[in-house]
């Protein structure tokens, strides 16, 4: 096509640059400065989509963010495809590929439009009323089919290939909207030296003035002044989509989207999280459609949008127009179009006797005006072809042929962001609209967003806002007379049941739907909204909410302020998810924590598992070993010889100060006062409710210094809990806490030959059994490095845990591995660690316990310091409700009748597998492994009154069968503990 609707002169487009693009595969051209919508109109294309519910043909209604109809999918391939973009906001770029949505097979011939002919079956809330029979047919038959027909665009079929940037920013004044009010506000604020951010969704600043050629000199002057301020950050192509608490505003800045994301190296867009001392919303106003029968045909558009297409984009939106209005502003549009060569067939004004300069100008141009008149219907299939015009109340109508209808019901201030900020809206009866009232945040509305209608008033209110936001005196506002327009369904004299006058174009809600909801008893506007879905589409009712309110108001005879309005929520316009994900994708989604020994383990072919944010070596397969084979070999090596294990992820806390022991007395269940320096103790930490939250070995390094270990996942939680008690409860204690988790690499050497392996590497300490018994600690040197050497075991074997400064972890590990070669040392992973500890009945907090286990439940009563007056959880354990319970779940061992059967962790235990469902559940399996040492399966379980049931047989019900298990003591291996003393 040849842009046959492009005007020869005027507009802000660059005719020297021709921009090719395709729409539904059809090649067209536009010019630099076009939006997709203006370029389509230049090519005579109005039909751009099919509606959500009825699949009615729809055209471009607006020229901005409020567009309800012209939703398109854009992108050169699936990785760059974005659905549901408003064609009125998509800047045209070379090679842009756009497609229409919600049509099969084509826009012109859409099989889904069958729903339009069946529209009487789809009234408001139809899914509550019809398609209810036969039972079950809704979910199985009707709903899937209706859902397939209804809808917006499709999801892209490939992951988003674009990059997204993010930034936090701070400013004194954030001005949202760079129209006349926003420009004036930003300049007034910047003059004081304040840090100002000025953002606007358009590629150029100017707002509504971009469509006012007569104001281009003023606009150029303001832009030049802006450029002179280094303290103004200017953000064009940036949508303020969300107003969050304490004046944090979310902005989505288009960086390369408008160029078609030519390089994946440059981010597509940037999310700004701006914290502003003051916010000025200069977001303009949105023109309201008029609600008349069949007001949704392609070619029917807002009057101001049509004028914008003429003045800014130099596009003639049609050849012969009828203008339908209740507001003077549409007369300006009529004159603009007339001067651009569009025949104005009629101006139809709902008002009885409108007067004013706009009308005078139209009369001067010789345009035919019919007052006190209305449009009672339209014709045309894929484009409007004619309208029927009648005097209000009269029966006979005049048919006027046209290919374009302009409509204007007046203007609604854009209060979305103000409303999001939880400011109270006020109803302005002169405007028939809500305007910002009492703010909840430091925020000021300016310009048309605050109800101004004249340019002078907008500029003055913007300047006042800028001065006020920076604490300066403000002049009195410019007085002006504003005009309201029309709300609700226009009078048309036709049977309301047989016409469809659309209120919400995007969700296909008609005036009849709303009156039906009222007839069915809905009164709250929030209920009417949910029942009819008016205002619930992706445009949040930008063009429809006030008309819906008008219909409710007139039907119920209740003034609009008494009905109230619905709540606007973020985002103002839809924002791609990528903006929110930002950099947090792939490997950067979250920290991947690796120990100092990780690289060694990776080189050995270890298989890793995730433990909180850590990567831990799970097992070290040799050759083609399976996990089962590798773990069996590693277990056997530790039991018979010696194994090497990376325990670096254990949480570590250094507790220092003269009251350190007393602090531990109050935190842990154990008694610490008598623990001598150089000795270790297994500590149990409860929450205040008496349930186990963590455990770990604690070493006393000196009278006033303890080395506390926690579980891997509990490290941060435990330190926070300790700080809480120290800072807020036990404030009498002189104690300090420092996380040392990452200060040390921790190398566990476990097995009967552990001492032989490390002895040659130890300096400055005697580690003989006599000098260094089980549960002791010594500061020494290992492999030439200062170390805290713990003699401790989580395997039941003779064992050591060597804490060395992390940078030395790998070197010490390798030295031990080297020294252990003659002893057959093997590295082992977390899976083997789990098996070995389960063989010994050692619990893992979070596996045997689930936040509801007391020390007694898991057989650890022995650890409690009974003489202590207080420790966290002590009082709760003494509560009668807890202490008197007789059927609490207790830790036991399980042996399956078939030694080869390894139970599923989490499986339930019952007494009678033949009991009908629901069965009486007595407990559950917490740990289950194959034990190489015992050559059979073992399991740990929490079972009601379990210790008294030892010896009994219970059953694990499984699909189609059950497994008999015998309850045993939880210690399966070396119950005397003799091996620890090796």
């Amino acid at each position, binding site marked *: 096509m040849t842009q046959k609707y492009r005007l020869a002169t005027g507009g802000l487009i660059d005719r020297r640059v021709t921009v090719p693009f395709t729409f539904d595969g059809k090649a067209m051209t536009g010019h630099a400065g076009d939006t997709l919508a203006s370029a389509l109109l230049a090519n005579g294309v109005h039909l751009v989509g099919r509606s959500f519910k009825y699949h009615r043909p729809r055209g471009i209604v607006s020229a901005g963010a409020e567009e309800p109809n012209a939703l398109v999918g854009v992108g050169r391939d699936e990785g760059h495809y974005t659905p549901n973009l408003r064609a009125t906001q998509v800047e045209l770029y070379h090679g842009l590929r756009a497609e229409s949505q919600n049509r099969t097979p084509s826009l012109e011939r859409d099989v889904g439009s069958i729903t339009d002919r069946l529209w009487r079956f789809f009234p408001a809330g139809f899914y509550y009323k019809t398609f209810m029979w036969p039972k079950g047919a809704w979910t199985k038959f009707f709903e899937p089919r209706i859902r397939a027909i209804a809808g917006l665009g499709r999801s892209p079929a490939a992951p988003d290939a674009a990059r997204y940037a993010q930034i936090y920013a701070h400013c004194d004044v954030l001005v949202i909207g760079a129209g006349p009010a926003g420009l004036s506000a930003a300049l007034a604020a910047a003059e004081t030296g304040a840090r100002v951010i000025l953002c606007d969704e358009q590629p150029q600043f100017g707002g509504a003035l971009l469509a006012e050629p007569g104001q281009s000199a003023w606009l150029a002057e303001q832009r030049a002044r802006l450029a002179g301020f280094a303290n103004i950050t200017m953000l064009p192509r940036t949508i303020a989509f969300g107003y969050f608490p304490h004046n944090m505003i979310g902005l989505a800045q288009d960086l390369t989207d408008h160029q078609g994301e030519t390089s994946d190296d440059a981010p597509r867009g940037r999310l700004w999280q701006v914290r502003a001392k003051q916010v000025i919303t200069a977001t303009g106003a949105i023109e309201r459609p008029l609600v008349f029968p069949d007001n949704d045909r392609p070619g029917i558009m807002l009057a101001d949008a049509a004028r914008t297409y003429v003045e800014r984009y130099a596009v003639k939106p049609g050849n012969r127009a009828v203008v339908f209005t209740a507001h003077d502003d549409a007369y300006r549009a009529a004159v603009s179009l007339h001067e651009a060569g569009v025949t104005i067939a009629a101006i139809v004004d709902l008002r009885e006797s409108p007067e004013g300069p706009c009308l005078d100008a139209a009369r001067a141009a010789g345009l035919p005006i019919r007052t006190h008149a209305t449009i009672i219907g339209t014709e045309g299939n894929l484009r409007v072809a004619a309208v029927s015009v009648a005097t209000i109340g009269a029966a006979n109508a005049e048919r006027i042929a046209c290919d374009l209808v302009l409509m204007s019901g007046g203007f609604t201030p854009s209060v979305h962001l103000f409303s999001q900020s939880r400011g109270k809206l006020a109803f302005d009866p002169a405007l028939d609209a809500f305007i910002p009232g009492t703010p*909840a945040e430091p925020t000021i509305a300016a310009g048309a967003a605050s109800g101004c209608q004249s340019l002078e008033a907008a500029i003055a209110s913007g300047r006042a806002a800028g001065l006020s936001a920076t604490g300066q005196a403000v002049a009195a506002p410019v007085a002006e007379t504003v005009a309201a327009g029309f709300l609700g369904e226009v009078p048309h004299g036709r049977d309301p049941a047989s016409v469809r006058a659309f209120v919400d174009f995007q969700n296909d809600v008609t005036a009849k739907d709303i009156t039906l909801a009222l007839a069915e008893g809905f009164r709250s506007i929030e209920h009417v909204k949910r029942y009819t879905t008016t205002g619930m589409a992706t445009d949040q009712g930008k063009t429809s909410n006030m008309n819906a309110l008008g219909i409710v108001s007139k039907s119920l005879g209740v003034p609009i302020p008494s009905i109230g309005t619905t709540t606007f929520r973020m985002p103002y316009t839809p924002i791609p998810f990528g903006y929110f994900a930002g950099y947090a994708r792939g490997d950067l989604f979250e920290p991947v924590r690796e120990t100092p020994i990780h690289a060694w383990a990776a080189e050995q072919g270890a298989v890793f598992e995730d433990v909180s944010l850590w990567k831990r070596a799970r097992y070290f397969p040799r050759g083609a070993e399976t996990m089962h084979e590798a773990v069996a070999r590693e277990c056997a090596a530790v039991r018979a010889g010696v194994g090497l294990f990376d325990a670096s992820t254990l949480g570590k806390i250094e507790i220092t100060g003269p009251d350190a022991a007393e602090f531990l007395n109050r935190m842990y269940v154990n008694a610490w006062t008598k623990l001598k320096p150089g000795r270790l103790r297994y500590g149990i930490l409860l929450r205040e409710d008496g349930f186990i939250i963590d455990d770990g070995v604690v070493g006393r390094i000196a009278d006033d210094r303890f080395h506390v270990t926690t579980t891997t996942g509990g490290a941060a939680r435990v330190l926070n809990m300790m700080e809480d008690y120290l800072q807020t409860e036990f404030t009498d204690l002189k104690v300090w806490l420092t996380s040392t988790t990452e200060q040390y690499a921790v190398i566990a050497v476990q097995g009967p030959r552990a001492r032989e392996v490390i002895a040659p590497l130890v300096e400055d300490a005697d580690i003989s059994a006599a000098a260094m018994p089980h549960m002791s600690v010594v500061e020494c040197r290992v492999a030439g490095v200062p170390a805290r050497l713990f003699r401790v075991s989580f395997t039941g074997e003779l064992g050591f845990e060597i804490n060395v400064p992390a940078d030395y972890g790998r070197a010490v590990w390798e030295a031990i591995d080297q020294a252990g070669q003659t002893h057959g040392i093997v590295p082992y992973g977390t899976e083997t660690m789990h098996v070995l500890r389960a063989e010994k009945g050692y619990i893992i907090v979070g596996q045997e316990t689930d936040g509801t286990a007391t020390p007694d439940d898991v057989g650890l009563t022995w650890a409690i310091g009974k003489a202590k007056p*207080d420790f966290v959880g002590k009082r709760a354990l003494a509560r009668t409700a807890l202490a008197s319970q007789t059927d609490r779940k207790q830790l036991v061992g399980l042996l399956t009748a078939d030694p080869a059967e390894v139970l599923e962790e989490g499986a339930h235990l019952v007494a009678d597998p033949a009991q009908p469902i629901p069965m009486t559940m007595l407990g559950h399996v917490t740990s289950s492994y194959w034990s190489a040492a015992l050559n059979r399966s073992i399991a740990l379980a929490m079972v009601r009154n379990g210790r008294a049931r030892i010896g009994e047989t219970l059953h694990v019900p499984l699909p189609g069968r059950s497994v008999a298990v015998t309850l045993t003591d939880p210690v399966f291996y070396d119950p005397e503990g003799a091996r620890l003393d090796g």
Partner: protein
Amino acid sequence: MLVISCPYCGDRPEIEFSYGGEAHVVRAPASVTDEEWTAFLYQRSNARGSYAERWRHAHGCGRFFNARRNTVTDFFEQTYKIGEAPA
């Protein structure tokens, strides 16, 4: 994201802080009945409006402190150090 005024560091963004539940809940394990201890463990006033609560500047100075926040508006009335009386 809220702005929270740490009594030590001044205004800082909410994500540096961790929440610590209701403030001024007295822990007195030695002298309470079972019912009182149960209330200490599980019952909070959950006030609509002005609410005394604890925060920790976890990713800052590390200090716990008390605050009064209006749970309807989300605005803070004041923050004050542990052991200090509210203004």
